[in-house]
């Protein structure tokens, strides 16, 4: 099976495997007084310091470990909106991940005002439009660093500046879940107050993530229980998962320049060969402002549902839209926000390349895609 669905999840990096295995005997609950507990606590806090350093955070206690990207997004959006007691207002873009959009909708149900900022036909957010939506009671703005479907890169730095100018008390969150594997992520350079990561998108284990929370930012917890993570995230710590995540972060950062050249090259080869073989295929999203590993393509007149099944039968794993709980392919809210009609949205496929992609994979993928298209014609 040729795996070109790395944006959904990517295999564990060797360093992450090693880190997980190193926990064979370190099983302690960090919240305890004895030696077993202490060694787990030490491993957890060492990982926190390394994570903070990798993100350019000033203090290690600015890192809150979570059970993944969705929880980090929930804590950021709902936690910030509810920090003041009564629900504050929320501004999000129309192409955010469901974890952000649904957290905003939750705040809306509690009585907060929710503004959804539209995007242009390439899926890009206009920083000025975000600032226009910010009012005196806007608690938090959430705009992603890169879109998980098209890979479109947003101008988060410019959004932060525009929002600060409008309301200096408004917090800015960015979901960097999809971007981290190939884009530099430095919380100070970005200027954000909150930033989410999910380990499994860059070669860490599933079920672990983190939220960067700038020093001084107050959040209302979304999980209620013990006082772990300085009261910001209840629940027994996951030192093994965290160690796996941070090892993968280190490997990702060390590999990033090479990844961009290497994996970006595979993606470019794929798109070039495919454009020659299937001239009607179109690149969705901004061609020159997107993640190097994403190829989001439209196949006019085709059904992505049928294509994905045929690709699977032919040994190629790709994706379309976002899978719903039953597994059926739903029309993507991202493409709808970009102005795609239903037919165009239902004809789109995302091929995403990753750290295990090999030379020759792009050529093989093009061969499979063209073979399936010819067979269907």
């Amino acid at each position: 099976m040729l795996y070109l669905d790395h944006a959904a999840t990517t295999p564990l990096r060797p360093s992450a495997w090693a880190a997980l295995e190193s926990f064979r005997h370190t099983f302690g609950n960090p919240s305890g007084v004895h030696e077993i507990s202490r060694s787990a606590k030490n491993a957890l806090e060492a990982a926190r310091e390394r994570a903070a350093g990798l993100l350019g955070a000033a203090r290690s206690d600015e890192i809150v470990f979570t059970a993944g990207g969705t929880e980090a997004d929930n804590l950021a959006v709902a936690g910030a909106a509810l920090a003041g007691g009564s629900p504050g207002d929320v501004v999000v873009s129309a192409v955010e991940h469901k974890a952000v959009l649904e957290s905003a909708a939750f705040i809306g149900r509690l009585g907060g005002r929710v503004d959804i900022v539209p995007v242009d036909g390439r899926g890009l957010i206009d920083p000025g439009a975000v600032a226009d939506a910010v009012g005196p009671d806007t608690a938090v703005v959430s705009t992603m660093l890169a879109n998980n479907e098209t890979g479109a890169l947003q101008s988060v730095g410019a959004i932060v500046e525009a929002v600060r100018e409008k309301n200096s008390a408004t917090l800015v969150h960015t979901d960097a879940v999809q971007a981290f594997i190939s884009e530099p992520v430095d919380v100070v350079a970005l200027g954000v107050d909150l930033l989410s990561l999910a380990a499994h998108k860059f070669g860490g284990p599933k079920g672990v993530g983190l939220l960067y929370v700038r020093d001084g930012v107050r959040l209302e917890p979304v999980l209620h229980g013990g006082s772990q993570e300085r009261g910001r995230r209840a629940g027994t710590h996951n030192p093994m998962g965290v160690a796996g995540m941070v090892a993968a972060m280190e490997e990702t950062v060390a590999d990033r320049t090479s990844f961009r050249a290497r994996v970006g090259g595979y993606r470019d080869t794929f798109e070039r060969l495919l454009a020659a073989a299937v001239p009607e295929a179109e690149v969705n999203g901004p061609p020159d402002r997107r993640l190097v590993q994403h190829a989001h393509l439209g196949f006019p007149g085709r059904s992505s549902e049928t294509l994905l099944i045929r690709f699977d039968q032919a040994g190629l794993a790709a994706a379309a839209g976002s899978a719903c709980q039953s597994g059926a392919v739903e029309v993507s809210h991202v493409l709808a926000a970009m102005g795609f009609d239903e037919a165009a949205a239902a004809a789109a496929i995302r091929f995403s390349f990753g750290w295990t992609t090999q030379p020759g994979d792009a050529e093989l993928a093009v061969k499979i895609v063209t073979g399936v298209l010819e067979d269907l014609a």
Partner: protein
Amino acid sequence: MKAIVAMSGGVDSSVAAALMVEAGHDVIGITLKQWEDADGSLPTAGCCTVGDAEDARRVAAQLDIPYYVLDYVDEFRAAVVEPFGRGYLSGQTPNPCVECNRTVRFKALLERTADLGGDVLVTGHYARVRWHPAGYRLERGIDPAKDQSYVLYMLTQAELGRIRLPVGELTKPEVRAHARRLGLRTAGKPDSQEICFVGKGNYRNFLAEHFPETARPGPIVDAAGNRIGTHEGTAGFTIGQRRGLGIAVQEPRFVVDIDAPTATVVVGDRDDLLVGGCSLINTSFVAGRPPRDGGLQVKVRYRSSPVAAQLTRQGDGWVVRFDEPQRAVAPGQAAVLYDGDAVVGGGTIESVIR
């Protein structure tokens, strides 16, 4: 041969998939997502639920076959649910399972079978497809208690050549026993009785929610036209219905007619239900042509026994005349024509002939 098996998550289609695998075919399991809740998710109660899709997926995993969910929500709504509501609005008693087979399963899905890489489409229906020198025959399933040939009458030669109905060769107890032998998780799952998108709820509640215009009150009258009560909407009634009329009378009273334009429900006694025949629309014949001899048996409801009848042409359409008058013949239901065990064809009952 590559087989696409439509798996509902029930025991019949689970066993259909298993039989195809055991026969050595290359099998792909699919589930049609036909209906969704307002938020776009699968229903959690009734049929077509998340749990059903999950059962189908798990059975596919047990059989070690690929499995996919296909989105047919828009097609299903347009071709099955909307006509269901419109049928009740016009005083008919629609049969959505027939329309689903006609327009979704054995049309849209069958046409797509090749695109999905399949040579044949397989379902878990209790009916048999037989090749005879004169062409394909559609026959009743072996199990008389489970025979589903009624809802497949619209199939014609081109379709029958591309479908397989393996459980039609088995009885229901045999199907369950086979599922148990294979350890399929659906072996003991209860049969679904209800209309899938209505679920366990009352279909009248479904109509009130999705087709509020069916809630149009009107009079209940007797055969002589005397008003003897009122009702909350004609969609609450079907021809032959006895219970829930909301009228106080000594003798048993049955719905004998529904006049949608005036929202009038006519009730009468048992004999007022008797009709001599019915006219058909959407008529089709399995052989692709009408039978030479009009002497046949006909079923006017899924759960009724076939009765002797004559099929004759009338203008552009067809008329069925029962040898003996029949009760409870409801426009909108299918009249399915049999010659012994073989389905000859059928159509939708347009109107009754008294």
